[in-house]
């Protein structure tokens, strides 16, 4: 397949792997890059030493294009940015904020910068400050989310900017890849389905929870304090949502108890496999994902079924 994004990023298929915290390591990302997609290393709150280890690990596992995701709220973000520029990284995706401050240096170093955005205004702003492309993320996605759905946000951003748009949130198989291309996207970003790939180091319990999930099994926590996060429903989310409800009615709501519950919860889910009090970030499409496969099988399934559905439905338009 060939789109503006495959050309720009020098990849075979228009599929980008999401930078899922604790999941997007060099094992997963290199598998995605080696299978023709764009692997992305997540760096979360990592110190620069850890980022360097991850990048070197990645470079030892693939010679294909890959990206590093910079989490802009990382307390070590300045040193991480310095390192990435010095080490010759070619593609950077950014999350949790505005990369404006670093944009001039990224561009000067010839780095393609791809911020994740959740509104038209933000997409236009990112284009103006020099973003190479944007990822629009609908609220179907797992983890930190915005307010719009992918179906509504994608065409509005496509019309508002002239840089390539990558769609994220709700992409579980090739049908949605075909649909995204129809809506004007040049690629999709996949998260949840890669969590359950063979190459993902996510704990087996977390993978199984995704495989067992049905369509209605995710909930949004943190809507009250303005930081909505989509996760699989479990004991943690039930408690969390209860506190949210109780505190919201109060004149001086105390959300400390929620923070207490959430502390380290992501690590508990992904690394320790704690499906009761861990935060299992997953998208609404989890219900569609029924088996663990290799990254290559997953990518080829997206590509082949997108092509098949395109051909199959073509007749609808011809008559």
């Amino acid at each position: 397949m060939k789109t503006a994004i495959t050309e720009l990023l020098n990849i075979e298929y228009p599929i980008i792997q999401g930078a899922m915290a604790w999941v997007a390591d060099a094992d997963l990302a290199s598998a995605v890059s080696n299978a023709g997609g764009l692997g992305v290393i997540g760096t979360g709150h990592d110190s620069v030493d850890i980022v360097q280890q991850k990048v070197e690990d990645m470079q030892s596992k693939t010679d294909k294009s890959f990206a590093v995701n910079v989490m802009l709220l990382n307390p070590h973000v300045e040193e991480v940015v310095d390192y990435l520029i010095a080490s010759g990284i070619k593609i950077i995706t950014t999350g949790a904020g505005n990369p404006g401050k670093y944009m001039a240096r990224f561009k000067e170093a010839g780095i393609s910068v791809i911020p994740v955005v959740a509104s038209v205004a933000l997409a236009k702003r990112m284009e103006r400050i020099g973003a190479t492309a944007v990822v629009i993320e609908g609220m179907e996605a797992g983890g930190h989310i915005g307010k719009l759905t992918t179906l509504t946000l994608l065409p509005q951003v496509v019309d508002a900017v002239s840089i390539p748009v990558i769609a994220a949130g709700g992409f579980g198989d090739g049908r949605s890849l075909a649909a995204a291309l129809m809506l004007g996207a040049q690629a999709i970003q996949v998260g949840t389905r890669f969590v359950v790939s063979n190459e993902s180091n996510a704990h087996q319990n977390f993978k199984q929870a995704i495989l067992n999930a049905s369509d209605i099994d995710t909930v949004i926590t943190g809507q009250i304090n303005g930081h909505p996060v989509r996760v699989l429903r479990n004991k943690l989310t039930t408690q969390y949502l209860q506190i949210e409800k109780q505190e919201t009615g109060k004149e001086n709501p105390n959300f400390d108890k929620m923070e207490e519950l959430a502390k380290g919860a992501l690590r508990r889910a992904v690394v320790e496999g704690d499906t009761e009090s861990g935060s299992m970030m997953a998208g609404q499409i989890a219900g569609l994902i029924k088996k663990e496969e290799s990254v290559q099988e997953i990518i080829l399934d997206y590509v082949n079924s997108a092509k098949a559905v395109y051909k199959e439905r073509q007749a609808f338009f011809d008559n």
Partner: protein
Amino acid sequence: MVFEKVKEIIVDQLGIEESEVALATDFENDLKADSLDVFQIISEIEDELDITIDTDQNLKTVEDLVNYIESLEA
């Protein structure tokens, strides 16, 4: 003058009463506006006043925003 314009845009954007917007009003804590709302407000202001606002500025309150815009016009 700048404050009046900014207030008008915030009121319009968030669907709130004019009385809820003062210089000391904090976007997140007082108006419950999230980052998407703030970017939207900034965008509207840029279009209406034909200016470019650097969002790396720490714009927490209406006053921060007004002061920043006034510094551009000075």
